[in-house]
């Protein structure tokens, strides 16, 4: 990966000179790098792909600010980081703190399991209704894929795909906060 700086820099300089093909390749490469960068850093509620696109637009409209005497990677990284900070500051994600009764704070000992159940409901609530029902039936109530498929009038494959996608999207959102512990629980 040592060659990434000279390679991207070369593409950028060609792009600044008005050559569309290398410029396009630069934006392609940047979009992949940005997707990985934001994917790991986006808090729940922010669409990483939106940030990728916003950053590509900023790179494009402000490309005149690239100083050829400076490293390209540092320039691009500074824009990516600025956009991430800006997204956080703008509060496009807001930490959810629902209004509850006061006893939400004063929980009797041993209520952890109840709270875990409540967290699970909240997390599942972010999924589409049918996906949520499928996950609840197969993963919590213990129905087989075939039974769930019959109940919803779907093929077994469609049920598997829906569950897989649902879990994956939850995994993406919550990987950093809960990922480690649910492996241990299994």
């Amino acid at each position, binding site marked *: 990966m040592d060659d990434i700086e000279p390679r991207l820099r070369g593409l950028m300089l060609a792009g600044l000179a008005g050559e569309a093909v290398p410029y396009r390749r630069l934006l392609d490469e940047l979009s992949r790098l940005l997707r990985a960068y934001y994917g790991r850093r986006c808090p729940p509620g922010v669409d990483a*792909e939106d940030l990728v696109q916003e950053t590509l637009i900023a790179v494009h409209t*402000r490309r*005149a600010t690239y100083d050829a005497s400076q490293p390209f990677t540092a320039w691009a990284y500074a*824009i990516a980081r600025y956009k991430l900070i800006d997204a956080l500051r703008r509060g496009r994600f807001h930490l959810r703190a629902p209004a509850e009764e006061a006893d939400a704070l004063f929980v009797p000992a041993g209520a952890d399991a109840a709270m875990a159940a409540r967290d699970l409901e909240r997390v599942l609530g972010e999924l589409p209704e049918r996906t949520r029902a499928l996950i609840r039936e197969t993963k919590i109530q213990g129905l087989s894929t075939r039974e769930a498929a019959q109940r919803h009038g779907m093929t077994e494959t469609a049920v598997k795909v829906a569950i897989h996608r649902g879990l994956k999207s939850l995994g993406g959102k919550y990987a950093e906060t809960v990922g480690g512990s649910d492996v241990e629980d299994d």
Partner: protein
Amino acid sequence: MSKTTDELIESLSADAPRVAPGAVGRRVALGLGLGGAASAVLMLAWLGPRPDLADAVMTPMFWMKFGYAAATGLLLAAVLIRLSKPAARVGSLALVAAAPFAVVAAMAVMRFVQAPPEAHRAMLMGHSSMICPFRIAAIGLPVLAGAVWAVRGLAPTRLTLAGLAAGGCAGALGAMVYGFACNETSAPFLAIWYTAGMVVVAVLGTLGGRSLLRWR
């Protein structure tokens, strides 16, 4: 999901004409120039040039005031150009930007210690010390507006620092314009009250940098 990103890349790269080098410097110069012109109009309409301007331009003190403000303004403009780019490093340029002040301060101290004690108060306070910094700040504001316009359209990533440079530069150029209206003639006055006026605008720029210079 990535289909729309591909489409975006397609449309961006289809519209990417050549970028002339030095575009950042030209934009900052344009903003400062327009702001400076507005400042000059403000100074002429509000205070008018000093009546003895034709004689004053023959004196070294007039040019010392002009030189101090202009040199500080230009050096801070160079700092501002750097800070208008992502991943900016200011480096030793910040020290160089303080050099004109160092020269003026040294000269002020020299004049002050050479002068008889009874002249000290007049040297320090002149006749306009209480209004000078505020006039400089007011005349500097249009330059600050021009600088903010220019830098917002670029890509600063250290907004507070860029605000400081924009404010300092605007204050210095405001002081340069004010020098055509002001008839103070002592180096200590220049070192203290002109600098104070620049600092007022620099503080405004620093406080406002984060919100004024934010770009999307």
